[in-house]
């Protein structure tokens, strides 16, 4: 019997290639989006882990100071104090090279003799006894000697002995390639791709960092001995130098991008959810279609269990084929997506190059499991529908619609429950992003479940007006929607959900963008901005030197110079970004305060008696005015109260802002990361720009001078680039929903063939049939679009006020652009109408006699 059942199932699917094909495509798209995003995320993360491990090696701990590094004498002192402890001194800097345009390389200055326990590939190789380090002679003795990964050297077209010039803020140093590193596996190849390895002496000389080191890697023994060694080391450290486990550095950088990656994953799951609705719809339809067959089978003695297994097996077939197709599609798409993800990580967080997609078997497995699992869950209601009806009742269509009406009511009740549960989850006082996404999905599903009921209500409500407006055909079209809910319910829900998402994402991006524009307008008050234009400036890298700064301040046409210096240090035990600002009243008042009264705290701030926090920093640590911060400085621990919190959309990492005079009292760093120039009234911007460039050149620096308009524009360019991934996902979710509607309407066509035939027999022209079908799909689309508006606005509010806040700590003003709403409705209508075109054409062509022959 089960073989018979299986054959009947197979035959059915084969005879309805459109329905099965669309369902397969729905699953495939959902799985593909998830897989593509996960692979792209995973590859970015792996590239990141590898780049970290190339520089961290096997170190268990690291000694580091702020961005300025520390005197090399500290290493000598510590090596003498702990002569048996493996220590590797390092100098790190991000550099660019005219030979490698568009690439940020990491210059790593090492002591090869200290590297064996840490990065064995950088230690002197096997040599005959008593000839230690002979093969490293060139590397150690030639000024500017550098090593590159063999692939990188090949990409840059560099052969041994050739020059690798560096583009840097202070003059330009030149390195010479003396050898290559041949990675022994793919992971190492990725890890070494952007590394330029030089000797400590070369690093100090080419970076103008004589006498200073960036970091010391340590290998502490495990367990108690290690803890004891760490304690003895920590006690011997001067102020400003701190001991951290090596994993902490990787973890903190990883943490930074976690919210970003989670957001992408959530969006990709949404596409899968739309796909699930599609599956539910297909199977529901196939079950409804075969109710007579099932009834007959049941009457012949097929048990419920056998029937249930049969429907689920069909679902598994669709899900399996769809998921496998999805894996292929997703893997292909991930190659395109990984570039977008890497670009965003580069724009927002840190320099990272992702060259290859890492085909993580775990992601592929999870994608397959999600596809199959979602299909089976979605198939459960139709399967139960098929089995829970007594054999005779199955055969009655009226009973079916009656049941479906009850189901709609149930779905509405469930939906209301979902909305309440979602709201309750949001009300929980938590900062958990996962919880927020959970609540978001529950709420979204709740809203979608209400859609069929709302459609039914609209159908009842609008039938009479439609009749008055378009005559009996209008009435039939509108009422027909409700009577066909058993086949269209899930499609309406899917369409509503997809359109709501589109609307929500549109509103969210718009809100974000307007907030950013307002913030840029408020903050960028100076006329010209000057920076080194070098990589890593957000991390305290490229810098305008004190000499340049002095020369610029004296130029004619400049009224006042505000400066900002970015540095890294330990705050409350964690690495944090410091912004040391030298601002006049105008600059200070331009800060958009989120908390604290600017007029009351200005004096305290400028006198160095208090600090400000950027909003993401304050949010993450739960700090506000009145709290106290412990800031590690080279002269010791500073304890300062927080006076206020300012909005800052420049980074999600957050920063501690302090007055420059305070910074200068405790840090040796001079110069500035960026300057804001206020021009005297009537001064010529171009002349001043030329003057600044000339002054900088005189001080040996090449600087970027930009008008504030340029900064605003380029910020928005970066912003738009960042949201390109989001836009792509939004499009995909829309595509899945479109498939849903198309498929539901195709189902309707088959289902209603006889009904239309009767109408045709009663005198309806093919043209009228076309209008009937298009009217009906238009109504469907219109209702879904209108329903999607409030849901979309609600979702947008959640994204802006809850998910964004928990992800990045930013406050964004919700802005609902009418265009987004109109677009939403238009999208739903267009999707529905486009999906209705083919069924309308087919139905109009139906020959009444043929369709009625079955009676």
């Amino acid at each position, binding site marked *: 019997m089960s073989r018979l059942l299986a054959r009947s199932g197979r035959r059915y699917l084969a005879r309805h290639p459109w329905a099965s094909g669309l369902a397969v495509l729905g699953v495939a798209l959902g799985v593909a989006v998830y897989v593509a995003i996960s692979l792209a995320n995973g590859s970015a993360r792996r590239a990141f882990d590898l780049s970290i491990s190339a520089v961290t090696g096997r170190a268990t701990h690291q000694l580091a100071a702020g961005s300025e590094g520390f005197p090399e004498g500290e290493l000598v002192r510590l090596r003498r104090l702990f*002569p048996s402890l493996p220590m590797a001194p390092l100098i790190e800097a991000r550099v660019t090279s005219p030979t490698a345009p568009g690439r940020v390389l990491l210059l790593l200055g090492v002591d090869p003799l200290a590297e064996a326990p840490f990065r064995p590939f950088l230690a002197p190789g096997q040599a005959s006894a008593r000839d230690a380090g002979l093969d490293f002679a060139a590397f150690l*003795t030639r000024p500017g000697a550098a090593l590159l990964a063999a692939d990188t050297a090949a990409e840059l077209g560099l052969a041994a002995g050739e020059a690798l010039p560096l583009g840097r803020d202070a003059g330009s140093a030149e390195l010479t390639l003396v050898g290559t590193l041949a990675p*022994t596996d793919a992971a190492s190849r990725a890890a*070494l791709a952007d590394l330029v390895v030089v000797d*400590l002496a070369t690093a100090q000389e080419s970076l103008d960092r004589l006498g200073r080191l960036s970091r010391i890697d340590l290998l502490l023994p495990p367990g108690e001995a290690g803890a004891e060694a760490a304690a003895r080391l920590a006690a011997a450290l001067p102020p400003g130098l701190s001991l951290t486990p090596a994993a902490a550095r990787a973890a903190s950088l990883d943490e930074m991008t976690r919210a970003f990656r989670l957001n992408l994953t959530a969006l990709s799951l949404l596409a899968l959810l739309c796909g699930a609705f599609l599956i539910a719809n297909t199977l529901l339809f196939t079950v409804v279609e075969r109710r007579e067959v099932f009834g007959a089978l049941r009457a012949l003695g097929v048990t419920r269990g056998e029937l249930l297994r049969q429907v689920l097996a069909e679902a598994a077939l669709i899900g399996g084929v769809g998921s496998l197709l999805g894996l292929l599609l997703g893997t292909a798409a991930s190659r395109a997506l990984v570039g977008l993800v890497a670009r965003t990580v580069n724009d927002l967080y840190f320099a990272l190059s992702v060259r290859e997609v890492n085909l993580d078997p775990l992601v592929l497995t999870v994608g397959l499991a999600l596809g199959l699992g979602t299909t089976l869950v979605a198939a459960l209601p139709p399967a139960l529908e098929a089995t829970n009806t007594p054999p005779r009742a199955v055969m009655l269509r009226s009973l079916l619609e009656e049941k479906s009406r009850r189901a709609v009511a149930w779905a509405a009740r469930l939906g209301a429950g979902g909305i309440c549960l979602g709201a309750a989850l949001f009300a929980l006082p938590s900062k958990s992003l996962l919880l927020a996404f959970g609540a978001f999905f529950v709420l979204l599903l709740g809203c979608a479940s209400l859609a069929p009921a709302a459609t039914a209500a609209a159908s009842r409500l609008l039938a009479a007006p439609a009749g008055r407006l378009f005559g009996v055909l209008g009435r039939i079209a509108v009422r027909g929607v409700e009577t066909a809910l058993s086949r269209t319910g899930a499609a309406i829900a899917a369409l509503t959900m997809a359109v709501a998402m589109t609307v929500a994402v549109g509103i969210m991006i718009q809100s974000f963008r307007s907030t950013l524009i307002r913030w840029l307008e408020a903050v960028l008050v100076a006329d010209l901005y000057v920076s080194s234009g070098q990589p890593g400036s957000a991390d305290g890298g490229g810098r305008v030197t004190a000499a340049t700064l002095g020369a610029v301040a004296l130029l004619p046409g400049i009224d006042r110079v505000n400066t900002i210096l970015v540095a890294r240090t330990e705050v409350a035990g964690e690495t944090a970004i410091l912004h040391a600002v030298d601002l006049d009243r105008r600059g200070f008042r331009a800060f958009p305060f989120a908390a604290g009264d600017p007029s009351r705290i200005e004096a305290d701030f400028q006198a160095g008696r208090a600090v400000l926090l950027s909003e993401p920093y304050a949010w993450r640590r739960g700090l506000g005015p009145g709290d106290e911060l412990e800031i590690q400085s080279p002269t010791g621990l500073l304890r300062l109260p927080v006076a206020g919190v300012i909005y800052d959309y420049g980074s999600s990492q957050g920063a501690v802002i302090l007055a420059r005079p305070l910074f200068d009292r405790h840090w040796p760093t001079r110069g500035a990361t960026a300057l804001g120039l206020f021009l005297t009234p009537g001064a010529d911007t171009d002349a001043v720009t030329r003057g600044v460039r000339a002054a900088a050149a005189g001080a040996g620096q090449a600087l970027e001078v930009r008008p504030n308009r340029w900064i605003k524009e380029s910020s928005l360019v970066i912003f738009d680039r960042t949201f390109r991934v989001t836009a792509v996902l939004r499009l995909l979710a829309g595509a899945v929903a479109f498939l849903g509607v198309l498929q539901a309407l195709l189902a309707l066509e088959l289902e209603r063939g006889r009904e239309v035939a009767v109408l045709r027999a009663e005198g309806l022209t093919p043209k009228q049939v076309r209008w009937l079908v298009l009217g009906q799909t238009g109504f469907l689309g219109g209702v879904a679009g209108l329903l999607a508006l409030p849901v979309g606005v609600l979702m947008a509010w959640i994204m802006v006020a809850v998910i964004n806040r928990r992800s990045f700590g930013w406050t964004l003003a919700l802005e609902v652009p009418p265009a987004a709403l109109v677009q939403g409705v238009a999208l739903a209508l267009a999707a529905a109408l486009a999906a209705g075109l083919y069924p309308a054409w087919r139905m109009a062509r139906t020959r009444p006699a043929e369709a009625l022959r079955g009676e």
Partner: protein
Amino acid sequence: MGETQRESFGVRRHVAAFQRCKAATCRRTPKPLTSWRSLLLFFLLPLLACQPQPPQVSARLSVAEALAGDAAGFERALAPRPFVFPPDHGAHPSFRNEWWYFTGNLEGQGQPFAGRRFGFQLTFFRTGLAPGDPARPSAWATHQLWMTHFALTDVENRRFWAFERFSRQALDLAGARAEPFRVHLLDWQATSEGGEIPPLRLEAAQDGVAIDFQLAPGKPIVLHGEGGLSRKSAEAGNASYYYSLPRLPARGTVTVAGRQVPVSGLAWLDREWSTSVLGAGQTGWDWLSLQLDDGTDLMFFELRSTEEAGRVRSGTLVRPDGTSRPLDLTQARWTTLDTWQSPKTGVTYPARIRLELPREGLDLTITPLLPDQELNLAFRYWEGAIEAEGTLASSAARGRGYLELTGY
């Protein structure tokens, strides 16, 4: 370096484990999915089996041949030279390689240590990457690299420790100076108040093992070979300048397992510098120092070679009064009586050796105090405390010393 190789073996092990884990999942998955349970397993296995691996980076370094260091520009040991002390106790950076090689046999003093025997080695190797000094602004720029080996043999407890350190000669981390004498790498050092050595103080400590000795004047400086020029192969210039302080009364403490043991005994200092030593076909060497009970000291080495012509032997006899002469090596025989295979590296070394010099009336059997005195460091070799028994000038002789076996 051995260290490097060991580390990369570590990586290989790690990779192999990962592959095993992948293979295991692959073996299990291709089964037909006959039941729900197998389907579940199919999904869960990869999750359980392959925990995310921390990425490890490995690479092979290749330095362009033409740019690697060579002997060009270094001086070579071509002819005998006058030795001038104290300056010659310091470094000779115009030669590529140089070492200060301290070895010695010691005995515990006072109860309960009396009779406990120890052997020690403290060696400072200097390698010049290029002749001359670099004129560069960075304090890290240098042409001199240092490698130091510190080994201790505890005969009673049959323990042997060996440690190594590396450093460049920069920021006073390592270096050698003639006046006042000091050669050091961090806190492992040999020092003197003035330029004349001895007296000397030797200090080294690591991981609970330490030595701290005062070396008193013993016999005067001995020049080996032709007035200090020690030829290592037939090719001119493949030679070193080589002198020794063969008998330095030592007194001080040895620390093992956190316990200080007062000791006294005899140490030996070898000083050698050269630019190129080994000729083609030479594979390694055996070297021996002996301090006999009658006051005679012996130095003997043999460079092993695949060709008969490359086999070079040389030796010095130091009489009790401090005068010395080259050993007559005619019909010399160096016979391995027994071997020992290192359980750590699998390498087989000679373990008991018979040295016969018929012209000197010498026939000594040399036995290591402990078979395992293998230094499994970046460079692997065997170097350890020995005792010798037999005849010299046809009368009974016995003594202690050090044996070095390289290239096995």
